[in-house]
Every structure is written in structure tokens, then in C-alpha cells.
């Protein structure tokens, strides 16, 4: 917890994007999370990704539930819409908001407690409906706000800070998302922004349900020997399958990863994803083999990261429902209440 506001003074050559905003304009208030919290790095990555994509802050809606992770929307995109829901209910509120106004960019931020325990059902249905959103789970395997109990994503046989061993199986959010039909699935690590920022950019430009499981060490309760969600463990076991560059029309973005085979994928909105393969045999377009691969590597104790699955032909909720292109919240009475005759015609057609 820091008591002072982040100084307004900034680097004299701080870059501006095409909207004339600096990266600092995408910040929120100063974080009240513990010093060193991985979630703050995710916030910084979201700020960077939104700045890079020239997103107008007032066209973004950030929604969250309850928990450390769900506090973070206060710390980024201070000029965007925000909604802090009941515990685990973010996916429903997001789905409703998306139905009412399909024009906003929806960013759901949740944690392993909020999404894998109390909100697991909510998570499942938002994903399976293909709500056009970016769903980020800041995953630290621990209930930080209640002082360090295992969460549902804690690995079996990992140890808590007090030395207790977790006997329960872990829920793998990535496998769930793949199984439930998410069309953009990635896993990353808060301590690797070179990987995380492009994944967020790709997710923000994806038109469909995009899910990112972001490992985010809890420095207060889950960053010790015996933890499988601490900085050292993740760095030692991180097996990145690819490195994503999101090619914007204005400037190529290059990462400092070693060169590998390049795959270029065009998304619905015209943005081009350039995928640099780090694992030659991994095919991010094949959902079944991705699921198998994840299980195999997890059995070997590895944490697979990168863009794990991308469906180029993604469909979203509005497409499935056949709603009109105009956001429902901007329709007038005439469109919303077409009158008795129209109702009778509709009823007749169903008899």
C-alpha cells in the first residue's frame, strides 16, 4: 500500500499514440495491493496493450468480481467504464452489458478464487456462449485477501506458506476454457511482459471469447519454496510454445526472442497476428492436440505458456443470437416495441 499518488511528472519523451494519449493516460489510481504483487504487473501490461492499440479509454468497460485481482481495475484505465460485481458474478454482468451495448470492448478481470471457485459456473457459461470479451484470470493459487489458504487452482502436493500440503486436484482454467469453446486461449506470466503484452493485444482485437490465464505470484502468501505459483518455480518450469507479435498497420512490433518459424494469422478485425514458434510441433490452430499437449506437459511438471489456441473463424454471442448491429441500448421505443400486430404475427408463427 502506497500513500502518495504517482507523480504526474513523466519522462520528457514519453510517446503518444494516434489518439494523442500517453501510456500514463491509461493508468488508474495508485495500487493498494501488496508491494510486488504480480497483479500490478498485469495492470501495467493492460495499460501498455490498450495504449499500443490506440484504444479510446471511454470505449472500454472493465468488469471484475471480488478479490485481489478484482480490485485491480481501479489501478488501470481510470477513464474507462468500470463495474465491480458480486463475488463470482462478473461473467453474467459482463454478458448482460455486452448484450445491451455490443460496441464497447469488454475486459473481465477476475482471479482464481473468483472464477475457479464461487464463479466457476458463471465462467463456464460466459465462455461457452462466446461472449465477445477478454477474460483475464490473475492466477496465484491462493486466497490472498484471507491470508493464504489454497485456492482451487493450487497444484496437488504443493505447499502453503505455513507448510500445509494441498491434497486436492487443481482446476486448470486453460483446459476448461478450451473444452468450453473459448476461441482465443492463452497462458502467460505476470513477470514476462514481453509475452503478456502481445497476448493481451491479440485478445483485445479478437472478436469472440478470449481467455488469458495469467500466473501472477502472490508475494505475501505464495512465493516460497514448495509453492508452484512463485516467481522462481514459474521461471524454472515455464515452457513457452510461441511468441506472439500483433502486427498493427502503423508499426511492426518486434520482440527480443530468438527467431523461429513464423506463422501469420489474420483476425476478423483485420489485425494480423504473427506467431513465432518456439516449440516447432505446436499448432495453435488445433484445439484437440492443444488439449493433449497441455495434459502431457503438465504431467511432466511444465507450465505451458503462449498463445495456446486461436480459432480464426470465431463466432460470438451476437452472431449466435442474430441480434442487429446497432447496440440494443441505442434503439428507440419504436424498434423495441413494434406493436400488437407484430406480436401476434410472432405468436402465430410459433403455434
Amino acid at each position, binding site marked *: *500500500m*502506497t*500513500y*502518495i*499518488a*504517482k*507523480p*504526474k*511528472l*513523466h*519522462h*520528457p*519523451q*514519453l510517446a503518444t499514440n494516434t489518439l494523442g494519449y500517453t501510456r*500514463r493516460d491509461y493508468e488508474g489510481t*495508485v*495500487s493498494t495491493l*501488496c*508491494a*510486488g*504483487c*504480480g497483479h*500490478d*504487473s498485469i*495492470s*501495467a501490461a493492460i495499460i501498455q496493450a490498450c495504449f499500443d492499440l490506440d484504444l479510446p479509454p471511454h470505449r472500454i468497460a472493465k468488469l471484475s468480481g471480488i478479490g485481489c485481482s478484482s480490485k485491480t481495475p481501479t489501478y488501470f484505465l481510470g477513464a474507462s467504464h468500470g463495474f465491480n460485481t458480486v463475488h463470482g458474478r462478473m461473467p453474467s454482468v459482463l454478458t448482460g452489458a455486452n448484450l445491451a451495448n455490443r460496441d464497447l470492448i469488454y475486459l473481465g478481470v477476475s482471479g482464481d478464487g473468483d472464477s475457479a471457485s464461487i464463479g466457476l459456473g458463471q465462467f463456464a457459461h460466459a465462455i461457452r456462449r462466446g461472449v465477445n470479451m477478454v477474460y483475464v484470470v490473475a492466477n496465484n493459487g491462493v486466497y490472498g485477501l484471507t491470508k493464504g489458504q489454497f485456492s482451487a487452482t493450487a497444484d496437488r502436493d504443493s505447499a502453503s506458506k505455513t507448510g500445509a500440503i494441498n491434497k486436492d486436484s487443481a482446476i486448470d482454467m486453460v483446459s476448461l476454457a478450451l473444452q468450453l469453446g473459448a476461441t482465443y486461449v492463452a497462458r502467460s506470466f*505476470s*513477470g514476462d*511482459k514481453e509475452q503478456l503484452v502481445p497476448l493481451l493485444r491479440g485478445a483485445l482485437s479478437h472478436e469472440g471469447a478470449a481467455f488469458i490465464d495469467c500466473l501472477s*505470484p502472490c*508475494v*505475501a502468501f505464495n*512465493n516460497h519454496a514448495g509453492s508452484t505459483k512463485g*516467481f*522462481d518455480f514459474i*521461471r524454472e518450469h515455464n515452457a513457452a510454445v510461441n511468441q506472439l507479435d500483433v502486427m498493427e498497420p502503423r508499426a511492426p512490433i518486434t520482440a*527480443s526472442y530468438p527467431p523461429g518459424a513464423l506463422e501469420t494469422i489474420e483476425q476478423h478485425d483485420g489485425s494480423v497476428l504473427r506467431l513465432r514458434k518456439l516449440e516447432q510441433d505446436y499448432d495453435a490452430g488445433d484445439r484437440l492436440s492443444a488439449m493433449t499437449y497441455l495434459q502431457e506437459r503438465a504431467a511432466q511438471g511444465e507450465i505451458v505458456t503462449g498463445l495456446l489456441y486461436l480459432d480464426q473463424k470465431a463466432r460470438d454471442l451476437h452472431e449466435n443470437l442474430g441480434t442487429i448491429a446497432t447496440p440494443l441500448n441505442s434503439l428507440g421505443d419504436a424498434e423495441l416495441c413494434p406493436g400488437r400486430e407484430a406480436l401476434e404475427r410472432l405468436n402465430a408463427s410459433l403455434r
Partner: protein
Amino acid sequence: MQPTDVTKPEYFHKVVDCQWACPAHTPVPEYIRMIAAERYGDAYMINWVSNVFPGILGRTCDRPCEPACRRGRVEEEPVAICRLKRVAADLKEDIRDRLPKPASRSNGKRIALVGAGPSSLTVARDLAPLGYECVIFDGFAQGGGMIRTQIPKFRLPEEVLDEEVGYVLGLGIETRFGTWIESMKDLLAQDFDAVLVGSGAPRGRDLQIPGREEAAAHIHIGIDWLNSVSFGHIDKIGRRVIVLGGGNTAMDCCRSARRLGGESVTVVVRSGFKEMKASPWEKEDAANEGIPILNFLVPKEFVHDSGRLTGVLFEKVEAQYDEKGRRQLVASGEPDVLIEADDVLVAVGQENAFPWIERDAGIAFDRWDMPKVDPVTYQSSNPRVFFAGDAAFGPKNIITAVAQGHDAAISIDLFCRGEDVTQRPGPLVNLTSQKMGIHEWSYDNNVSNDLRFKVPHAKPEIALNSIKVEVELGFDARLGFREAQRCLNCDIETVFTPQLCIECDACTDICPTDCITFTRNGDEDDLRGRLSAPSLNHEQDIYVSAPLKTERVLVKDEDVCLHCGLCAERCPTGAWDMQKFFLKTAQAGAACR
């Protein structure tokens, strides 16, 4: 790059831009914090120890610290350091009981000091408390040297000058004022163990163009004229005045002339307005008093009517640059300009003059007829004779004279003890954590967003009426506090302990000026090219840590760090700490042996 060695005092000292730029290395942020805490006496004493004349310098310093101030690199203007120094001097309580006492007994060594200007007074102040018998000679009746003779009273009230000269002379120093030294040989023949020449650069440069002899009665050498004004020998000037020259002396001349009856005062400079040597704020003050500054005009002739000056004829020139970028002033071909005037003040530079040093007195002179002086020890080729201030290396400024005085005093002390003057004592350096609690520091790390405050000025109708009314009123306590809060506390250093770092990125994420980068190591140019934010200023060092767990290094570009301490506040392991760097340069005395 090799890991940065922060145990060398130079590394952190350079980060404190103001202190590094100050010739006397005054611990600026330390006294500014004291001003903010209303500890004016303490702030004054920090200054007094370093620069001897806080009240004087707080009004007249050339302020090399301000262009160096980091605040000027992250917003529009630097902290008003100079005027804050004045706040300390103006608002302090009585500090006389905190000054050193005159030595209780002599150490048997006698030092002659020629000239009672800033360098001599500094040497006397440093040596007298150690038991040296100091004898100061000056041709004028009072001490102060050029501070008294050349700086007009409307910039520096006499009381302030008397007070601070008095503090030095009160240390049991023998004064022989009204005594010109006519012969170095005679002086050396007396029983002095060492001689310090602090006689300044007392000769104003003349301008020999047609009409100079004939109209001599109305043409005055700037510093001589200021001197006469200072001592009350001159109290009026013609209605129309031209000041030739673009340095600070010219600014003092024109503003003095404005107060002595010069209704229409014009400054004329040979080259461009921008190239003028005068400090920007002095040009601004002159402009505010309705004094135009005309540029690219070269004086050609003093026009007179049988000895009565009527004006000055100028040739119009323009700047041309040759292929090597050297500037030349060439005639523009436009018609000459006649500016009418009743009096002309010539302020085109000043130079050293040592007619009283016999060339066979054992002191070698160079081909510019300047004494050969060692730039570190200030010793001349006669080991008993030392030079400091303008006398040593030509005209500079008060703060440089003070700094040289401290160094010369060290040399004299070493010399008189029979020690090697080239073995210079190092500075006193301290580095202390400022952590008071989890997110509490012993300094106010909340960076102020205020822009630089203007110093209130006396109303022109009052200020221009008298040569003695001080124009600048100085900051009051409230404005002084707010201006002090603009200081970024650059002496509170970010100290990094690589072994504690877990590479969580918290510091990189929070840093408001993007100073911090975790990356793979490389050579300096390579690293500077890969930082989070462009590296703009290669004069500022980058800090490179020892390799971290991931084999990356932490690189911090010191250039625009705000010293807000957020890196340390957001660091979960205490790998970052905010530590106060205090550096006091060595001064003569037992502590430095």
C-alpha cells in the same frame, strides 16, 4: 557493462546535479528540506560552511546549480535554488553562537591575504579558527572586494554584505584596509609563512575607437563607475545613456544608470542577444526596467561636439558561420546607426592586473602575463604564494572564488605543516537509509506539481527611485516553503541490492519516469538503446546491477529519476532503498588529515 560501483562517492554525487554543478559543492537538497521544515538557521549553517556567503550568494550567485537542476529536465523550470538560499539567510534566527570562535591561541603561522574579496575571506575563514594569524590587506576601507565595489546596492543591500563579511572578520582576523600592496617583494620580505593573492580581476577593458580621448569626460569604464557609485562618489548620470557590453557588469551598469537619472538607457551588444554573457535573469530584470538591448551593432565612433559627447555611431553586422561552424561578425551593408547619448558606460570585459608583483619575485608568469598557478593546489611557482578567485585564472564568479578559496586554504594548511600539498584530502561522505516505516520516509517523497514561483519585486516607481532600494523582495516563508517543495530530493538516492531482487517488475511498473529496465547485459551504448524510455542525456550515468537470478541485469537511467521512492515502496523485498547521500567537501583542518 561491469556492475556500477556505488561505493565511489562520484557516482551518487553526480546524481545530485545541483551539488555536483556547484563549484563549492553545497549540499543543496539538504538545506532546501530544512527550509521546508522552517529550520532556517540550520539551512543557513549548511550553506555557510560550504559557501561562506549565503545571504550574498542568495542574491548574486551565478547559480550554476539551476541549469543543472533535474527539475528543469522533467518540467519547464528548475527549482529557484538561489532564491531559496536567500530565504534561509533572510529568515534565520541569530546564528552567531553557532559560528566558530576565534582561535584561543595562535599556531605561530602568519598568512598574508591580498585583497578582501570572496576568495581571501574564504581562506581566512577556513584558516583563522585553526590558529593561523591571518592579515588581510585591501585598498578600500571595507572588506568585500568586488562584492562591495561592483555589485549595486539595489541587488545586494549593504547590511547583508556587512553581516557576512563581519562573520569572517570576527574570527580574529587582522585587517589592514586602506592599504594597497605596492610590492610583492616587500610582502614576501615580511614574516609571513604564506601569501594568498586574492586581488581579483580589477581592470576594466577599454574601447579604443575614434572620439575616445576627446569625449573622455563622458565615457566611463563600467566597473570603475560602479565602484564610484558604490562609494557614493557618483550619484548622477546624463539623461541618455548607452551601455556597451553584454555581461552581468553591463546589466548592473544599465540598471544603476536607470536609478541615477538615466531616463533613456540602452544596452548595445556586438553579437546576438542570445550569445550575451549576462545571466538570463539579469537580462530579464533589465528588460523589466524598460531598458532595451540592441544587438548586432559594433561601436565605430564616439561622436562628440568639441568634447561633449553626443552619441555613438554603430556599424550594423550580422553573424556568418564558416564551414567549421565558427562565427564571424561581418558588416551587413546597411547604413550606420547613430544612437544619441550624454554618457557611455563601457562594460566590455575585465582582466587581471598584477603591476605590484615584480617579475623577479620568484613567481613565474605565462605568455598571457598571468601567474602560473596549479589548478588543483592553487600554488604558484613560488611555493609560499598561492592564488585564488579571479586572480588565479581570470574573471569568473563569487561561488568559484569561494570554492578556490577552500582549496587554497587546504594547500596553505598543508604547506605550513610541511606536508605535500598535492596529497588532497577526500570529502566526508555519508549514505544513510531514510526508511521510517513500511511506506514512510524521513523526507517528503510526494512530488509537488507546482511550477516555479516568481520572486516578488518592489514596485518600479519605488525601485527605480533609489540606488539603494532592494528590487527583489525575496520569498516569504509561505512561498519559500512551496518553492522548496518543488525540490526532487535528488540526494535521497535509490540504492539497489541485487541479491534481494526477485524480479517482480513492481519498480518498473510504478516508476513515473520509466527509469528502470530489466534486460540482458551489454555495453553501454547497447544498453542505452534498450531502455524502457529513451536515454536522452549521456552525461548522466546509468546504474547497472550485478547479474540477477534470470541472468538479466537491472539498469537504471539516473537522468530523470524523481527520487519519489515509489520503486522502494513497491519493492516487496527491500532490494530498493532510499538512502541519503551527504557529501561535504574537505576543508582545511585536522579533520582532513
